[in-house]
């Protein structure tokens, strides 16, 4: 057991101290994420297979609505074949659902763990971060299905050929950028929600809109020019696009917009986390 001294004053722990503390409590983060998953699927027959259902259902909906309307085949395809819209939509929906679900549960995480926040001490970052980790596990399961679906569509009647490109190996970098962005927003918004519950309500509406300001189910090129500025300012647009480029188009995604998204994500984490550490000691008495 390591001995350490706690000295409490009105000082904010330094980032280094805090990282050491988080490392010490890393198992707790996994445990909380595991608990979430365990409790979520405990009384269901399909269990974790439910992770695939929401993006799949959304895919069916969008295929039904947009299937013939949106032309997605004209963009940067290798060869002359077309990508089935359903795959296009699913490849955007899987990471998007990770973003939306992960953030939604991260935002409520401090408030829903009130007994722990007010009764036991450990770094409070653990709550929003573990909420993101538990959404990430759902994302991994859905991703496996996404990859299998892509491979199966190799035999798509129109003859589109899925080629497992080396760029699939770049996906972890895209995931990392997305998680950085989510962690930054998650820390910031979970704290804001603790002080003002309005934040949670507001977010649930905004996230619906946000999806349509992100190119989840259509291409940027398919939108009206005046909307594109807003869509391009949104860091989730290049992130979702990067997934598709790695998986479907076989291209490395590191262009200007993606770099922009990476910088915004890093800034979000830096700001969110610093602010979180400054206000953390007020959580227990304000929750």
């Amino acid at each position, binding site marked *: 057991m390591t001995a350490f001294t706690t000295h409490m004053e009105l000082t904010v722990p330094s980032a280094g101290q805090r990282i050491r503390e988080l490392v010490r409590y890393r198992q707790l983060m996994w445990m909380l994420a595991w608990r979430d998953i365990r409790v979520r699927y405990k009384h269901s027959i399909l269990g974790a297979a439910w992770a695939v259902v929401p993006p799949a259902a959304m895919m069916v909906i969008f295929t039904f609505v947009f299937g013939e309307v949106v032309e997605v085949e004209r963009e940067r395809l290798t060869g002359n074949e077309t990508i089935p819209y359903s795959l296009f939509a699913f490849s955007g929906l899987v990471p998007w659902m990770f973003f939306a679900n992960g953030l939604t549960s991260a935002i409520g995480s401090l408030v829903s763990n009130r007994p722990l926040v007010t*009764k*036991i001490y450990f770094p409070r970052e653990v709550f929003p971060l573990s909420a993101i980790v538990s959404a990430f596990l759902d994302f991994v399961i859905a991703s496996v299905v996404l990859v299998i679906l892509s491979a199966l569509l190799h035999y798509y009647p129109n003859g589109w050929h899925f080629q497992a490109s080396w760029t699939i190996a770049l996906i972890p970098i895209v995931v990392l950028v997305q998680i950085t962005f989510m962690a930054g927003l998650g820390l910031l918004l979970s704290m804001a929600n603790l002080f003002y519950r*309005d934040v949670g309500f507001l977010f649930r509406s905004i996230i619906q809109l946000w999806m349509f300001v992100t190119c989840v189910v259509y291409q940027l090129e398919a939108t009206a020019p005046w909307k594109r500025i807003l869509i391009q300012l949104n860091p989730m647009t290049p992130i979702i696009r990067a997934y598709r480029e790695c998986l479907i188009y076989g291209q490395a995604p590191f262009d200007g917009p993606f770099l922009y998204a990476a910088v915004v994500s890093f800034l979000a984490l830096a700001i969110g986390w610093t602010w979180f550490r400054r206000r953390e000691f007020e959580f227990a008495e304000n929750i």
Partner: protein
Amino acid sequence: MTKSINVNGVFKKFRRGERHNSLRDAVGSWLRLDRGHRRSSGLDAAEFWALQEMTFDVQPGEAFGIIGPNGAGKSTMLKLLAGILRPNRGTISIEGRVSALIEVGAGFHPDLTGRENIYMNAAILGMRRKEVDHKFEDIVEFAGIRDFLDTPIKRYSSGMYARLGFSVAAHVEPDVLLVDEVLSVGDRVFRAKCMDKMRGFLDRGVAVVYVSHDLRSVASFCDRAMVISDGCIQYTGGAAEAVAQYHEACIDASMLPSTRKRSLVDVSPVRFVDKSGRDKQTFTPGEEITIEFDVRYNHAMARPSFGLSLIRTEDRLVMFETSSTRMHYQTPPAVEGTCSRVRYRIALNVPPGEYLIGYHVRDRDSALYAAMQEDARIMVIGESISGGVADLAPKVAVEDVDPRQHEMNVANVGRAVAS
């Protein structure tokens, strides 16, 4: 000697009501710029000091009690020590790993099994997985829930729940242990086990801070104790003296002039006098004590009767009751406006603990009850030869007997041991 806990001039303020109930209020207050209207004391109108000028040390291997009425700030102090809250002024330093038993099983999830919750709760308390693997058997054994390890804990009884919670926390191997009123759950046997476990901690040099309303356990377990009320330290010293101090303070508080309407009788505060004629509130088991109160009659009574009862505070068990009528004592008729002094002498053949004294005055003929009050308390501290409720004046003898003579009773003895 190094100190485990050093608390120096700690102040903590709280806010009445919410800071802002919603974003709307918050935006409103930002716009009006009315933040920062501070009085000279450092408080604004909605704030108050929950704790003031807290200064104390706890040494390794020492049990330190904190006692005081509800709302005095005991739990706030523990939360400050645990790092859940931060002081507004002053410093707290703690040497080593802290384990706080502020609420047993705070991290339990009802849908998870006992086994899963052990791992979960241990992680919350800062234990590593390997450490838990290593101590798993001990934790299960101590909690006594082996048969229900794979049952979701929503099916547990509240006693099992508490036992599991304490058991996990007790295996953290802290350097500083904070305990808040958690032993009030669980049965007697388990409570005794917990106390033993905590004594074991003390032997290993763990500093224990113990908050409880069970004054008896504070007096017997702690080395030193602190009395706080309204956020201020009233007394710090030996545990038994602190308990006695607190006790006396409680009695002073409950003796405020009665605001009741003019009733059948007025009853003076009850006095407790020992054999040598001194007023006291703290006695030893078996001590002879005189209970005395004055009654002024606001109405005439043909045959006034005076009752007395001794009630254990902890579980409100009536240890003893009697009345002048039951004792066939003839009281003279009461004339309106006159006074009587009632004096009961009893032997305090009760186990150590805190007791309420109840008394009543009634008119036998008209069946009018005048008063039944339980606002006077006494404390019995010290060794007693008996436990339980009744002192049956035991005598004991042990002698050798012929083993053959003994055979016929073996079956009975066996059953007695098993039950």
